[in-house]
């Protein structure tokens, strides 16, 4: 209850008493005093200083609200009047004031209600905007803590706990107090915590020491407010606010406010959680796709995953190193885009025939054996050593690069002839010569063309997946990952700045990972050798020089970071 002058404003009282004075004989006096006797307003002839009020010819009438006396109306007549003769007027004036007091009190109570509603509406509005501004659970938690920390709660401790369906225990996702991990666990293990969670309703405990569910799990806590956070069927959590100051008690208003926040948070968390789930499913599908592509050929297993991670690692470093790569600036979403591009860059290989993809030799084995038969016959007829020659052909068939000597042998055996049943055969036909002479690797030009189509194939396969909402460049990054800065790459022969930075990164890590692993046409190279080749390519103007330099400098870290999970992307469950 407020003091009387809040209900009956002195300015109003003065006017009111002035008018009321007219009801009384001249020389009368009216005054309203508060509960300590201070005069709020008066009218008429004031009695002498120090005289007893109301005195023998006056009346004193209490002004009260709900049984509490807040002040008093004093009515004094003049010398001639008796208390009885002024009683009707006095009672009338009193009743009018008492009536105004009652109504003013009611008005205030209603206004307080309304203001509370305004407060609630404003809080709700703010909370909805702030808490829903993020699709990340962790950020929703941070926003809720900020709101609790900055507003009216008398709490030095604020903690948010969550439990994912897959986990046994609650984890603290955020707090604004210095409480160690063990204490947080002790809190979430306490009977108090457990029972409030089970009960599902927020509670205030203003004297923790008297609560038998609390065993001083966090020493020094005196008061506590806890509200369960509910996002239907998904996560169960709690907001805990507390203070070590016994005086800082929580009220029903605090509980109501916290409940409002908790309900909004529940919705926000459900949104964020569902969003993350969808992200995870997408991620899993993309990974499955990448694994499927890599699995077509046992030698490329894990290639896409490694390329994705190396690319992100290199990009992160390029972003940090402003001296080597001053132009590079990657946001988190750019890094995610690059990661997905890395995972999917070889999807187009699904359109390449398996025999081309896994081709290990220039000629298929049965074909080489046929040549062996011709050689054996030639050996018989001419009496020459043919086994060594055949062994040489077997090596040539598998070799990545041919020496001049190899080429000479091939040419020579195109000339060697064999008479069989009247016909003349050469040991090697023209076609066989061409295929054995394939300069590098073992693919014929047609087969190479087939391989070189894979960036476009990747683009074609992925173009209908609506990645572009999040990742506007992903298709182009993939399409350009075999372009080279000097214009010698494929499919479009783009050069220089026309090639996306992300594609240049992908190019480097793609080449590197291929060099470092066995391929059908070559053995795995050492790290040192692989880096030397990258440097050569950069000197030849094919790969981006600063990026290659950075890659070589930080290779240990770039390779090491693989297998440490994917820090940028939604984790396997809510709590990451």
């Amino acid at each position: 209850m407020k003091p009387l002058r809040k209900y009956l404003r002195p300015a109003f009282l003065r006017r009111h008493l002035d008018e009321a004075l007219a009801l009384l004989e001249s020389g009368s006096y009216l005054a309203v005093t508060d509960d300590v006797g201070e005069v709020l307003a008066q009218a008429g002839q004031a009695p002498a200083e120090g005289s007893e009020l109301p005195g023998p010819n006056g009346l004193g009438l209490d002004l009260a609200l709900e049984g509490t006396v807040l002040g008093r109306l004093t009515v004094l007549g003049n010398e001639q009047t008796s208390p009885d003769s002024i009683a009707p007027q006095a009672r009338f004036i009193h009743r009018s004031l008492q009536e105004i007091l009652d109504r003013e009190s009611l008005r205030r109570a209603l206004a307080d209600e309304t203001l509370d509603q305004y407060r609630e509406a404003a809080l709700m509005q703010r909370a909805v905007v702030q808490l829903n501004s993020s699709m990340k659970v962790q950020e929703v938690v941070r926003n809720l803590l900020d709101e609790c920390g900055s507003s009216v709660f008398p709490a030095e401790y604020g903690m948010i706990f969550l439990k994912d369906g897959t986990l046994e225990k609650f984890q603290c996702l955020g707090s604004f107090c210095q409480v160690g991990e063990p204490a947080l666990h002790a809190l979430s293990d306490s009977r108090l915590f457990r029972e409030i969670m089970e009960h599902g309703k927020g509670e205030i405990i203003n004297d923790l020491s008297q609560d038998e569910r609390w065993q001083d799990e966090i020493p020094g806590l005196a008061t506590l407010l806890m509200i369960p956070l509910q996002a239907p069927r998904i996560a169960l959590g709690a907001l805990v606010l507390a203070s070590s100051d016994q005086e800082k008690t929580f009220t029903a208003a605090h509980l109501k406010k916290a409940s409002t926040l908790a309900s909004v948070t529940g919705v926000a968390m459900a949104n964020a959680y569902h969003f993350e789930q969808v992200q995870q499913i997408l991620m899993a599908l993309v990974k499955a796709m990448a694994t499927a592509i890599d699995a077509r050929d046992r030698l490329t297993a894990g290639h896409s995953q490694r390329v994705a991670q190396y690319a992100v690692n290199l990009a992160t470093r390029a972003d940090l190193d402003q001296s080597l790569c001053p132009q590079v600036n990657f946001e988190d979403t750019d890094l995610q885009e690059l990661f997905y591009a890395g995972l999917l860059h070889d999807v187009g290989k699904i359109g390449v025939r398996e025999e081309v993809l896994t081709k290990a030799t220039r000629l298929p084995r049965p074909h080489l054996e046929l040549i062996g038969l011709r050689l054996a016959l030639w050996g018989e007829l001419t009496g020459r050593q043919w086994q060594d020659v055949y062994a040489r052909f077997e090596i040539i068939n598998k070799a990545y690069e041919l020496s001049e000597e190899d080429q000479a042998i091939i040419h020579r055996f195109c000339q060697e002839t064999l008479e069989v049943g009247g016909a003349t055969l050469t040991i090697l036909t023209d076609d066989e010569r061409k295929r054995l002479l394939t300069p590098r690797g073992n693919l014929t030009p047609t087969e190479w063309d087939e391989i070189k189509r894979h960036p476009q194939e990747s683009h074609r396969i992925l173009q209908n997946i609506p990645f572009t909402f999040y990742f506007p460049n992903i298709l182009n990054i993939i399409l350009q990952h075999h372009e080279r800065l000097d214009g010698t790459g494929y499919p479009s022969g783009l050069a220089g700045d026309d090639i996306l930075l992300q594609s240049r990164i992908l190019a480097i890590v793609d080449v590197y990972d291929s060099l470092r692993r066995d391929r059908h046409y070559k053995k795995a190279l050492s790290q040192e050798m692989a880096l030397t080749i990258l440097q050569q390519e950069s000197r030849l103007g094919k790969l981006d020089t600063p990026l290659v330099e950075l890659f070589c400098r930080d290779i240990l870290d770039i390779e090491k970071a693989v297998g440490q999970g994917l820090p940028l992307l939604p984790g396997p469950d809510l709590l990451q």
Partner: protein
Amino acid sequence: MRKKLLIVEDELHIRTLLEQVLEDLEDEFNVEVLTAPDGEEGLRIIRDERPQAVFLDIMMPKMNGYEVCSAVKDDPELKDTIIVLLTAKGQEADRKKGLEIGAYDYMTKPFDPDEVMELAKELLQIVD
């Protein structure tokens, strides 16, 4: 010296609610809260009582908030009066116009009582 805050608002319930919020400052900050039900009366009180800060509704009969605000800002004796405009929600144009003619800040209705309180304290500190 006792400071004065004035609320100029034609809607009785809003005026009453604002008054009730600001009244809580009376003792702590030695401030008196005055009210006026329309622009004309508001301007008269500004001239007579010289409040340090005014919460001024825009949409009012007789004289609207812009007119009162302009009159105050054009008067060399009154121009230091801090004016906070009260606008209906979502009327961003009001806000811009108000700030252009010299209002210190604006508030949307229905207002957040805590926000009003904070703003009033801020104004009283400026006056100090």
